[in-house]
């Protein structure tokens, strides 16, 4: 039935055409190489930039940055899938860089316009999810692990077992609420790769988490650090930076990547196709990669920077903090997620629906 006439009904085509007209009326994207107005539209995670970075960028270049915030990668993807609503720089995580690139909504980045790229650690200048870093450049990286209150556990935590397969801390544990995160870490606990495509592995995860559910207090929408701080839970599955921020406020808490390994991720700076100010976007990325600017950002958000020059400017409590920069043997056991196609995505979502409905 996928005939020509049906294809004309495709909603995307309809929306693409209308949004192209809208874009033509407002942004003149094809005149971009001429003089650009001094504006930049930046789409970022919350609390994910230095406190004065955008103001400093304005006083240095005269470019006014309008920053919008998204709460999760899906929000970012949903907003851009029907055509770019006018963003110049976005901050997707590695698996979404791959997905967006497959969907053809990212613009190639011109490395020649970013001389500060020389500050970035060589390890980050190539990646499986974007060979040659054609469409993405590294912003921050980190791990997914366990944050916990040292005073309220019998022995230091070192395994996903306490969260996935144990009643020892019944009612005092939280997992994240993102389907993929919960399922990927369960795969690591069982001993599979988190990039498995085998439906039997997902079945094992489903049984494991359903059996454990009675002991889990909540699937937390990325607020594990608040749950820990308010003593709602004692052990939380969380991103390292969130726990590192909490640790700077209270030494009762600590962070660990379990012995089975966790997830290693990288948030990237990308320019979506149809960006109204691509020149400013390159200028902004170059500015963020400056050593001093990078140091200010890293110091305020407490995530690991790939910017070696910036890291060198910061104190030992940042640069040698194992919660931010885990030791090499821990990193060796971590995996990063790959985009494995829509079918695997659907298995993950269906597994999650069944877990929550049981």
């Amino acid at each position, binding site marked *: *039935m996928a005939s020509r006439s049906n294809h004309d009904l495709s*909603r995307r085509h309809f929306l693409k055409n209308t949004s192209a007209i809208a874009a033509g009326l407002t942004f003149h994207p094809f005149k971009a190489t001429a003089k650009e107005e001094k504006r930049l539209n930046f789409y970022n995670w919350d609390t994910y930039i230095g406190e004065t970075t955008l103001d400093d960028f304005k006083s240095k270049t005269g470019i006014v940055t309008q920053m919008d915030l998204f709460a999760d990668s899906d929000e970012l993807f949903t907003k851009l899938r029907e055509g770019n609503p006018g963003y110049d720089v976005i901050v997707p995580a590695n698996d979404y860089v791959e997905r967006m690139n497959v*969907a053809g909504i990212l613009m190639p980045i011109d490395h020649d316009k970013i001389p500060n790229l020389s500050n970035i650690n060589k390890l980050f200048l190539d990646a499986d999810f974007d060979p040659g870093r054609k469409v993405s450049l590294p912003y921050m990286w980190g791990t997914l692990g366990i944050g916990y209150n040292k005073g309220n556990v019998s022995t230091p935590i070192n395994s996903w077992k306490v969260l996935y397969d144990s009643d020892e801390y019944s009612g005092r544990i939280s997992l994240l609420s993102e389907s993929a995160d919960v399922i990927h870490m369960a795969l690591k606990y069982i001993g599979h790769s988190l990039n498995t495509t085998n439906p039997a592995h997902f079945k094992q995860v489903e049984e494991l988490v359903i059996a454990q559910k009675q002991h889990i207090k909540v699937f937390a929408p990325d607020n594990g650090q608040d749950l820990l701080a308010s003593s*709602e839970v004692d052990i939380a599955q969380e991103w390292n930076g969130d726990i590192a921020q909490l640790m700077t406020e209270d030494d009762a808490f600590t962070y660990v990547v379990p012995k089975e390994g966790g997830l290693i991720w990288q948030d990237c700076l990308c320019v979506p196709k149809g960006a109204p100010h691509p020149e400013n976007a390159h200028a902004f990325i170059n500015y963020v990669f400056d050593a001093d600017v990078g140091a200010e950002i890293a110091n305020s958000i407490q995530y690991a920077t790939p910017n070696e020059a910036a890291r060198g400017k910061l104190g030992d409590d940042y640069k040698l903090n194992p919660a931010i920069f885990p030791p090499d043997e821990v990193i060796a056991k971590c995996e990063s997620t790959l985009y494995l196609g829509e079918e695997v995505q*659907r298995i993950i*979502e269906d597994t999650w629906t069944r877990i*929550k*409905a049981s």
Partner: protein
Amino acid sequence: MNNWKDSKSVFITTFLPGTVWLTAFFLVPLGFVWVMSFGEKYGIIDIVITWTPNNYLRAVESIYLGIIWKSVWISALVTALCLMVSFPIAFAVSFAKDKWKPILLLIIILPFWINLLIRTYALIAVFRTRGHVNFGLEWLWEKANAGLILIGLGKHQFLGEKFQPLAMLYNDFSVIAGLTYVYIPFIVLPIYAMLERLDRSYIEASLDLGASQIRTLFSIVIPLTLPGIIAGVILVFIPCLGSFVIPDLLGGTNSQMIGNVIERQFKSANDWPFGAALSFLLMYVMFGVLAMRSLLTVRKSEMKV
């Protein structure tokens, strides 16, 4: 009454804006969603309309029907709670002195001036283990325990060794409490409007003729305000059925409602056709509820005849 054809310009100026609005911003988008529910996903962002029934066949699988059933009973319970709380409130406001009425109504509408998300986060601070309710209870416990010690009964520890906080957050209780809290104004206002229109002499007549207060309430007041009650019930039940923010923020590991599943289809699952089919399935459930309502009204008018 004049025929509308005699004053066409009046008719057009009155009805055109509403009709255009309804068509452009409700019926047309709804049509898009309906068409999409017969589509198939190709690759990551392409959707091709193939008129496949598969999305609906998947939507009536037992797991989704189970989730819809859970959403229906949570919504029904919330509606019943709202009704029980709001009828006395509406009654009190309606029988208050005239100078107090605007102030009392203002107090009822006041929560609307604050964003839903902020009210929900405030509820987290109220319900959590180290939250205001448990702090209050702990304070009472300490005072009571101190009292027992004072009268020499301290060693028996009647109240337990230590205060045990109540688990009020992250379970179905918090979802039901949160939804009830948010939707109460929707049901108070229509009932209040009906009570205002109620001719007080009916109540006096009923009492004069020897009916008790309770009898008057159930035989006179409730039947005469029934249209307001039904309107309020619908205004609460339908948005409740599709809610997803409150179960997301206040719910525990089991508190998944159909709204959450639909939201995920449009976000992390990236399966818009299936999400569209689920939305329409939910809409058919709502039509069912509304049809039941008009069926009841018809039966009633037949009974009267």
